[in-house]
């Protein structure tokens, strides 16, 4: 028996009479300042926000917080003095020893502090997960209020893999005690850039 045919036939026979889609274009209620909201939410979910002027501030941060021997990677070309920027075509397994990964997002969402990242910004799909610590640069004027606004911007963009990422990896599977750093990055910093 051809299962595909069988399933589709059963569904065609059993599905209810068609109902329309709701209009969701005006559903969002935005009664907050997007920058304030983003900061509060990110801190609430275990991330940190650092306001910066340009990539020099990021370089200074890396120098102050990470030592020579620690592997730092980035997709941001201005950071070559503190990070490898030519790792995108390596076997993803070789990223296992990355201590800090610095990416740049083109969009952030205020209501939940999620950052939208696709392959050009990720470098490799596994990169934001396998690193011990993650930092993402975001321009303040790339903040949108809600997920509806975010998908409006994404629209029908083409990508192989896209990711909303909000805060560090976490779990509460042991007695509901929150622990940061389950399998993905242990920390998550957003460098919020004024433009």
């Amino acid at each position: 028996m051809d299962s595909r045919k069988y399933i589709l036939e059963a569904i065609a026979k059993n599905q209810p009479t068609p109902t329309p889609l709701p209009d969701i274009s005006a559903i969002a209620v935005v009664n907050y300042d997007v920058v304030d909201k983003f900061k509060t939410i990110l801190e609430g979910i275990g991330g940190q926000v650092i306001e910066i002027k340009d990539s020099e501030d990021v370089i200074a941060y890396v120098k102050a917080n990470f030592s020579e021997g620690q592997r730092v990677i980035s997709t941001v070309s201005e950071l070559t003095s503190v990070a490898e920027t030519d790792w995108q075509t390596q076997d993803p397994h070789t990223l296992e020893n990355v201590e800090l990964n610095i990416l740049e997002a083109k969009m952030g969402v205020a209501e939940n502090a999620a950052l939208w990242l696709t392959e050009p910004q990720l470098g490799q799909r596994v990169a934001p997960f396998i690193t011990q610590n993650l930092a993402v640069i975001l321009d303040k004027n790339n903040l949108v209020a809600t997920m509806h606004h975010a998908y409006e911007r994404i629209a029908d963009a083409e990508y192989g893999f896209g990711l909303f990422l909000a805060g560090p990896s976490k779990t509460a599977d042991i007695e509901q005690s929150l622990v940061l750093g389950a399998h993905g990055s242990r920390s998550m910093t957003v460098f919020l850039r004024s433009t």
Partner: protein
Amino acid sequence: MNHAELAENFIKDGERTTWHDETLWFVRKKRDLAAFQIPEWEALREAASQIKHNGLSHMHEYLIAFEEKATANGIKVHWAMDALEHNQIVHRILKENSIAEIIKSKSMLTEECHLNEYLIENGVDVVDTDLGERIVQLREEKPSHIVLPAIHLKKEDVGETFHQHLGTEKGNKDPQYLTEAARQHLREKFVSRKAALTGVNFAVAETGEFVVCTNEGNADMGAHLADVHIACMGFEKIIPERKHLGVFLRLLARSATGQPITTYSSHFKKPRPGQQMHIVIVDNGRSQQLGREDFRNSLKCIRCGACMNTCPVYRRSGGHSYHSAVAGPIGSILAPNLDMRKNADLPFASTLCGSCSNVCPVKIDIHDQLYKWRQVLVKEGHVPFGKKVAMRAMTFTLSHPGVFKTAGKMGRKMMGLAPFTVSNGLNPWYKQREMPAPPKESFREWFSKNRNGQ
């Protein structure tokens, strides 16, 4: 064993039952806090429900569109009529790639299909990577909650399990320490395994992409390192358009744990170069449920777990008492569809208080469906005699106000004069409970007295 017997076992440890009850209620309160911050919450729930209904009513065309897009994107689509076929497809893909070890992230569908057992019997080593699932897997147990798989355990239990299996210090029960041990143990699996299996939260008909939500990052660690990624989904995961993800991602985590969104919401659209990506679309009774007018709304479920966290019966009987992959109120609607006889007890494991329907982000009429299942099950002869008599008596009493009045009076008298007649073996509610003192007068008596007095 049925729900009542299994629950009896669970509540033997009174302290633990109370902890379980309070912890889940705490999660429910976090959900409330998150929901109250969104002025448009009710509009969102309504939109989600309508989008899902549109999805159900166009399922045939959406599935075909999804398959076409996904195939064009380089994903291989498979169809499985039932659990066995699903398991066979997964096993065949592994065999074709000569892979005998896989890692898995959370998928309630694979629990429903008993995939782990099937693969292990066929010589495949399976490691669950969600922390809660790994804990129960090491203990050879099943998840007791769809979002919080190990919520029935205390940290002492986890400490002991990890001491035995992962070599952590004996007696160390610090969640931070134990989570770190699991992180190290599973990292080794992530970097060495060639195949990763994930679930699917949403599959978009318009684009052929699918979205997987986790907090831990385990689905991504597996999928992006493996040569072969297999994603398994019940067909009801289909949503019409990409922009609808906005509605569901706003509701899912807030309803589940009170978070504004899960840490990771990963949109898989194409395999990475050199990687194989498979999707297995499973029916396993769903098309039948789609045809049951009274119960088809259960297919809207986005598996947030809110109905469990709020359910007074679930909280005090534990997930395992439901003897079904999905526990709680929604599980009790889904399970009888698969096997009425075996799961006839589940729709009765509810007080019909309606709290589940109130929190459900896709507005499933959960408690109404539970009530309807009871009627179907009685009619089909799947309900034990005692319960049937009680149900008939209830229907009779409720539809005859005179009898209701007398019955209430009798009940209050009986409890005052001879409480043992209420607290005997025929009354299962009395087990592990003290019957409350009966009120001297019923609301009805009180009302008529006070009204007359005016």
